[in-house]
């Protein structure tokens, strides 16, 4: 039976983990590769690096991070942040990434999704959808896409965009609720479910995890097949194993052998 996936996500800037990872026995908590190894050993189902390097010159650091991670971790790795061209994708895949997530570039130019999927296969193209709930209370639910880390409003309907992204070749969608990100109030379940029920491909729920019950809700109520979180793991609030055991205890099929 296919298991739900738990994916820790690391923000990487200029080759370093931004928030640090609060694990004991980590030689260098700021080294993404050290953190990746720790998560690999802890039973993470996949890893995600989000490169938030602003400068063009700093971009090359992510390739080195991915290369070193691929040498040590034999599990799937997704890399996102600043992926704008087919060449960016090619370099990440050659370095050892298995999937790339495309965000702003996909919104600006949806044809880029098609180009990427045709070149590298739908299975490695994750389209990252950052959305906020925009309806007033009591009105029908409506979600809109935001880009540039949630700062730029686009007016694009998130569910419509999700359908279009999949038609163009996205093999998976990473759905982040920008109104919940960083709040620890839990995923925006309405958003996650609206998109998951609208598309045939797997959806990763992201943004807002504060408790282990939130992880359960993402799969059970949001219909996601994977849940992504950052700070809950990095700050040592919960381990990957605790998370997976808790989800399994709540009836979600989990991989507990790692």
């Amino acid at each position: 039976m296919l298991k739900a996936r738990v994916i820790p996500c690391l923000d990487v800037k200029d080759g370093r983990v931004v928030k640090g990872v609060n694990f004991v026995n980590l030689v260098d908590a700021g080294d993404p590769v050290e953190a990746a190894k720790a998560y690999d050993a802890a039973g993470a189902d996949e890893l995600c690096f989000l490169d938030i390097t602003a400068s063009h010159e700093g971009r090359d650091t992510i390739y080195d991070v991915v290369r070193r991670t691929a040498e040590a971790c034999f599990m799937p790795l997704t890399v996102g942040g600043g992926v704008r061209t087919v060449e960016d994708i090619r370099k990440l895949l050659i370095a050892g990434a298995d999937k790339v997530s495309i965000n702003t570039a996909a919104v600006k130019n949806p044809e880029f999704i098609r180009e990427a999927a045709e070149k590298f296969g739908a299975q490695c193209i994750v389209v990252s959808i950052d959305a906020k709930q925009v309806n007033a209370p009591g009105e029908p639910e409506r979600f809109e896409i935001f880009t540039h880390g949630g700062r730029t409003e686009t007016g694009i309907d998130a569910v419509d965009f999700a359908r279009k992204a999949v038609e163009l070749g996205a093999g998976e969608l990473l759905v982040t609720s920008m109104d919940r990100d960083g709040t620890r109030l839990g995923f925006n379940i309405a958003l996650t479910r609206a998109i998951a029920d609208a598309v045939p491909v797997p959806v990763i729920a992201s943004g807002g995890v504060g408790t282990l019950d939130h992880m359960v809700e993402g799969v059970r109520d949001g219909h996601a097949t994977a849940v992504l979180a950052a700070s809950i793991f990095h700050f040592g609030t919960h381990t990957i194993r605790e998370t997976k055991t808790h989800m399994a205890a709540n009836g979600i099929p989990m991989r507990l052998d790692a």
Partner: protein
Amino acid sequence: MLIAIIDYGSGNLRSAEKAFEHAARAHARAPQVRVTADPDVVAAADRIVLPGVGAFADCSRGLKAVDGMAEALIEAVEIKGRPFFGICVGMQLMASRGLEFETTEGFGWIPGDVTAITPDDPALKIPHMGWNTITVTRDHPVLHGLDTGPDGLHAYFVHSYHLAASDPAHVLATTDYGGTITAIVGRDTMIGTQFHPEKSQRLGLELIANFLDWTP
């Protein structure tokens, strides 16, 4: 022992290389792992690995675009009987035909078509993406000692098509995703996995180690 991982512009070659190197380090014969687009290296190799991600037709075209590679591979596998390991689309290319987007000829080593997965539960997502257990359907040396079955170790799958083998004897293991899906095929000196052993942690690394030990 020289292990050639064929580079034809498809896939996560570095991951495959590192996983084989990892398994090779623990191996008594200390095999050398080479990622190569050179048919002469493939011809000289003791073991051959064909990775592959993306669409069947693209991979087939990519392989044919490397001058002399398909011929070197066919000679090494069919005539010299060198142990061969196909991964994901590399495994699917062992089939007679791929039906993804267009009909494309495969090597025909495992008779059958590569067809779309159609889970009996329409709520199941396609691609079949993530960790699943495998069930061994036929004993084989590369599977010895592996902890398989519904409570066993997991393998990492990501695919929308699978190899529907005409002869059940060629299917070594299956997985379940709203129906039975081919997970491992094998015949003579060849094996192929639909999942990614290089991404499957312990199960994958043990399988690769078994492949290196295997003397068909």
